């Protein structure tokens, strides 16, 4: 879906300078709440996931995990920012004001306002227990040159997030790729 390449002079250099850098200036994202039963129950209900180790203390105790554990794929959810709902449309869907990633500001400013997630990979080193607090550090891994895609001209952005527990030990690593694109709405 990405055939002919189109270069935007100047922007490439600005973007490449961000590769290897943390995506935000504010340090690690700390989960606003520790791993907790209400958010787990909400998640399990939304996906109708009946795995009893997420919500049933008896089943958790009887399992290899020995207690209730969080769904492993909730890892990213724990550190998602608390959103400011007012103005979310005007901010192009960004859940928070200001403080956004420089790489996204650059791309949005260059007209790549559309966002589509394309790849997600998780290595889960261990499951989280109730009460644990997770924090995440995200580094820009790669930014592609401008390409034609079926949604419009776009750039693929890859970042790697390392999740750590209270003791600073790594509990999981996520590689995430999005397409930032200039929306082309059919006339």
């Amino acid at each position, binding site marked *: 879906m990405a055939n002919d390449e189109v270069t935007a002079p100047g922007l490439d250099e600005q973007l490449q300078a961000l590769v290897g850098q943390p995506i935000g200036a504010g340090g690690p994202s700390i989960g606003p709440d520790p791993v907790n039963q209400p958010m787990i129950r909400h998640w399990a*209900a*939304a996906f109708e*996931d*009946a795995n009893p180790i997420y919500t049933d203390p008896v089943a958790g105790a009887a399992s290899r995990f020995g207690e209730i554990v969080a769904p492993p794929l909730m890892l990213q*959810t724990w550190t998602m920012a608390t959103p400011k*709902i007012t103005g979310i449309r005007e901010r192009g*869907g960004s859940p928070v004001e200001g403080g956004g990633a420089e790489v996204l500001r650059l791309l949005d400013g260059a007209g790549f306002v559309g966002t589509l997630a394309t790849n*997600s*990979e998780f290595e889960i080193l261990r499951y989280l227990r109730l009460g644990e607090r997770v924090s995440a550090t995200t580094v820009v891994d790669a930014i592609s040159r401008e390409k034609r895609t079926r949604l419009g001209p776009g750039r693929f952005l890859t970042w790697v997030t390392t999740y750590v527990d209270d003791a600073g030990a790594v509990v999981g690593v996520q590689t995430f790729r999005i397409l930032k694109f200039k929306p082309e709405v059919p006339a």
Partner: protein
Amino acid sequence: MRSLDWSEIRVGDEVTPLVIDVNATVIAAGAIATRDFMPVHHDREYANVQGAPDIFMNILSDTAYCSRFLTDWAGPDARVARIAIRLGVPVFPGHTLTYTGSVSAVWRTEDEGFVDIEFTAVDDLGEHVSGTATLGLPLDGPT
């Protein structure tokens, strides 16, 4: 809910398919439960402005359904050790999303048994997700 016995799993074994009847509530519930407030996952008018005909499922919901698909089959003693997905066509309200997969490798370390799985999820437009995963299971059978 019984867990599979790792020693009885063979390459080629099919993962029990998972079928999701997707509607707007399914998509919005998944987005909010994963704390993803991007309007494209709950606001159709906004999605239209972005060039999409309707709201569409977010990727955190995709990985959530993948883990449910895997552990519904392998049981509560299965540990998701790795999951990697690539997104194809989007999922819109009205679609039927069907996950299927099979075991591609069975291996072990000194203290845990592992199963590699290749899977896809197909909706009304085609292949929505393709992925690979690794599950860990106790060597001494289900608890």
